[in-house]
Structures are given as structure tokens and as C-alpha cells.
């Protein structure tokens, strides 16, 4: 159980049987008035955000969340299948549940799967992934157009900006938190 004074940005709580994360938090207390804990909360299943104001006496259930390391097996018909590395149990998440992380998933990749009451709700890919560039405009040496980057497409279909010297067939490292190019991977 959490009390209102435990509330802070990033805390995960359970409301009406659903997990929420506090994405913004303000402590307010009008003169002589009550302490008010104003939160912006995001439903971790639906992604919907809303504002709530709590008082000192309010209590909160801890969201029963668990993270497990699983291996991405394959995608079929919009369903993404994963296997628990310890129990070999298999689970599936929909494309909607995975949102914009699907572009970083490669077969046999280890990911962190977030479970709410044993129900998978989200997947966190490794911080750095290495993907092969499948489409890139050739680099023209001495190009003076002034542009520092160019767009390339990687094997998962993800498009990002990279330095102009990156060529088709090369492997690059991407930071999945910022979704940006990090470095070229020497083969």
C-alpha cells in the first residue's frame, strides 16, 4: 500500500484493477488548506492519460507488475510471440500493445516483458540494437549540400537519420530509448 505522500513521478499504482504510471506530479497546499497531490496518470494498458487529485488520506495499491526476460520468437498475423527464457512458457502480444517498439524486434532477441497480474502488457527492447541498413542513398564524396545526415531504412523497415557515410549493407547501432543512430558497427 502507498499513501498519498509516497506519490511521485514514475510510481506505478493500481486503480480499479488497472496499472497506471504517474507521469507528472505536483504537491499543492493552499494556505491552511489540505495537502493535494495532483497527478497526471497514464493507463499502462490503454496508454490513455488523465488528471487526478488525491488527498493525504487516500491510499493506493501497488501495481502488481513483474518484468521477465523473454526471447522474441516470431511474428504472425499481427501477433508477436515470445518465450520465457527460464520456464519456456510462450506468450503473445498484439501489434497495438507493442506500439512503436516492433521496429526494434529481431528473431531470437532477448527483451524485457512487463506483466501485470501475469498478463503481458509491454515489451522493452535492449537499450542498443544492431540492425542492417537495407536502403540508403549512396554517399557522394565532396557533397557540399550542407546536410549532416541522410535517411536510411533498416531491415525492420524503420527509417532514421544517419551520417552520410553509412552505406547499404552496413550494420548500425541504434539507441532504442531515443530511437537515434549511435555508431557504425564494424563487421
Amino acid at each position, binding site marked *: 500500500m502507498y499513501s498519498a505522500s509516497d506519490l511521485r513521478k514514475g510510481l506505478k499504482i493500481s486503480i480499479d484493477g488497472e496499472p497506471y504510471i504517474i507521469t507528472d506530479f*505536483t504537491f499543492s497546499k*493552499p*494556505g*491552511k488548506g489540505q495537502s493535494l497531490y495532483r497527478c497526471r496518470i497514464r493507463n499502462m494498458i490503454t496508454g490513455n492519460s488523465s488528471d487526478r487529485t488525491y488527498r493525504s488520506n487516500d491510499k493506493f495499491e501497488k501495481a502488481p507488475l513483474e518484468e521477465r526476460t523473454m526471447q522474441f520468437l516470431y511474428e504472425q498475423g499481427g501477433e508477436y510471440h515470445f518465450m520465457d527464457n527460464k520456464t519456456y512458457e510462450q506468450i503473445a502480444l498484439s501489434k497495438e500493445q507493442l506500439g512503436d517498439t516492433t521496429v526494434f524486434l529481431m528473431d531470437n532477441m532477448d527483451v524485457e516483458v512487463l506483466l501485470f497480474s501475469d498478463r503481458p502488457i509491454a515489451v522493452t527492447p535492449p537499450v542498443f540494437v544492431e540492425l542492417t541498413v537495407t536502403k540508403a542513398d549512396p554517399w557522394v564524396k565532396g557533397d557540399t549540400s550542407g546536410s549532416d545526415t541522410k535517411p536510411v531504412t533498416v531491415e525492420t523497415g524503420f527509417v532514421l537519420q544517419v551520417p552520410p557515410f553509412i552505406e547499404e549493407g552496413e550494420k548500425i547501432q541504434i539507441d532504442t530509448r531515443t530511437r537515434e543512430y549511435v555508431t557504425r558497427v564494424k563487421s
Partner: protein
Amino acid sequence: MPPARILRQRGALFQAIRTFFIDRGYLEVDTPVRIPAPAPEAYIEPEPAGDWFLQTSPELCMKRLLAAGLPQIFQICKCFRRHERGARHLPEFTMLEWYQREANYFDLMAECEQLLPFVASALGVGDEIVIGEGVVSLTAPWQRLTVADAFARYGAISLAQALAGDCFDEVLVRDIEPKLGRGTPTFLYDYPAVLGSLARLQPGNPSVAERFEMYIGGVELANGFSELCDPVEQRHRFEDEQRLIAKLGGEPAMMPEPFLAALPAMGPAAGIALGVDRLLMLLLGCQTIAEVVSFSPETL
């Protein structure tokens, strides 16, 4: 720790406050920080210190000094309130309180209108302070707005509806406070009687307490009122607060009897508490209160 520049301005602010009050005939006093019986207030939780408590405000001791015959007094001191930590709250903070006999809450508002330009000028801030994208002019007169008018103007619901629905604080914080103290500081005044435990009720209108709050840039900076000086009425109000504390699951501290005994000798008076850290934060354009104190709790 904040830059030395800010600590120098902090020292200058203390000095300017003292000059302002001493020039006006006020006496600087100091009262004990550790006390046996803070004023029972439902939403202010005192910090225990042994069998006693650290003061949440020097109010009761200062009123006893008024009653003892000192007509104009001020104090800069530390106050402690449990569980109050946020962008504008510290559990230990610096308070300026001043009290004057034979004065009322409108007299205090006029003094605030003189105090702030004086200290701002002493700090070299000038008579305008920048809050976010707006500018607040400290030149008098400032805006005066009753609580009822503020609810009518900015609230999603009226004052009567908010009181009936037990959401006065929520509406105040969400709808009203952000609108106050823009352009000039705002005095929000005439609070519902139930929200002014130590304030005098308006003669002829017992539903209103002669209490005000000063706001600058949406930040509440000071709380003042015409003092309640009827010991019987004061005891009833404290008992109401004690009942509310018990109902909320707290353990009310004992009745401040010496204060109640001294009250008849005080006579009509007015007093105000102003958050010095918040004032410095606003004058220097800082975003959080932690930026203007030498050490916040997290850095100790």
C-alpha cells in the same frame, strides 16, 4: 547549494525586512521554536520534538507578546510542517510574521504593498518582477478580490457549491490560484468562516472570516487576518479543529491554554505570516523553493 549570489541576496532580503519593520516602529522578537501545544489546525501537521513539537508558526507566542503589552512586533524564524515537500514547499522553512494592535486585515494589505517594493528595491530587483512569461508590477494599489468573486470569475463551480461538495481546496488550486497575482499581486480575501480558525468573523456577517492570502504569479505568499480575540469563540474553533483532526485519524495536541488565557488582554489586532523563501524565489525569478535555501532536506 545555490550559487553565492543567491545566498548574498538572501542575506540582503533578511536585512531589508528588518530595516523596513524597525523603521516603522516594530520590535523584533524571538519566541521558542519547541513548544508543547501548537494551534490545532487540521491540515498542518506538527513535527514532534520529544514530548513537545517544533512550531508550525510562532503565532500563539507572538499574540501572547501583544497581550503582554508590545503593540508592534515582527519575527523571522524557522517553522516546521511534516510531509510538506514540493516545488514550493519545504518541511522546514523561513517565516516572517508581524503583528500590530488596533489594526485590521486591510491595514496589513497596505503594509504588504509597501514592504514588497521596499525589499525588491533593496535587492536591486526594481518594482517589476518577471514570472515566467509575465511581469508583475509591485506598485500599489494591488488587486483585491474576494474569495466568492474569485470562484464566480474563475471557478468551474461557485463558492457555495464548492463548500457543499467538499472541494474548496481542489477548485482553488486547479482553477483559481493560477490566475492570481498576474500583472499585480492579488489579495484574495474574505474567506468562508470555517476556513479561518484564528481569524475574526466580519462584524454583521458571521459567514465570512476577515482573512486574506497574498498571491504573486499564482504562488501563495502570505496569509493574514484580523485576529480573533474572543477566548470563548477561539476555544470553540480549536475544539472543532481537534475533532476534525481526530476524524482524519490524527492525534490532536493539547489545548494551548496559556494562549487562551492571554487572549482577552490582546485587544483588536491583526497579524500576518509571509513565506520568506517563496518571496526570495519570486524576486529572483527562481522556479523552485529549493533554489533559494542554503540546503534542502535532500542535500543534508
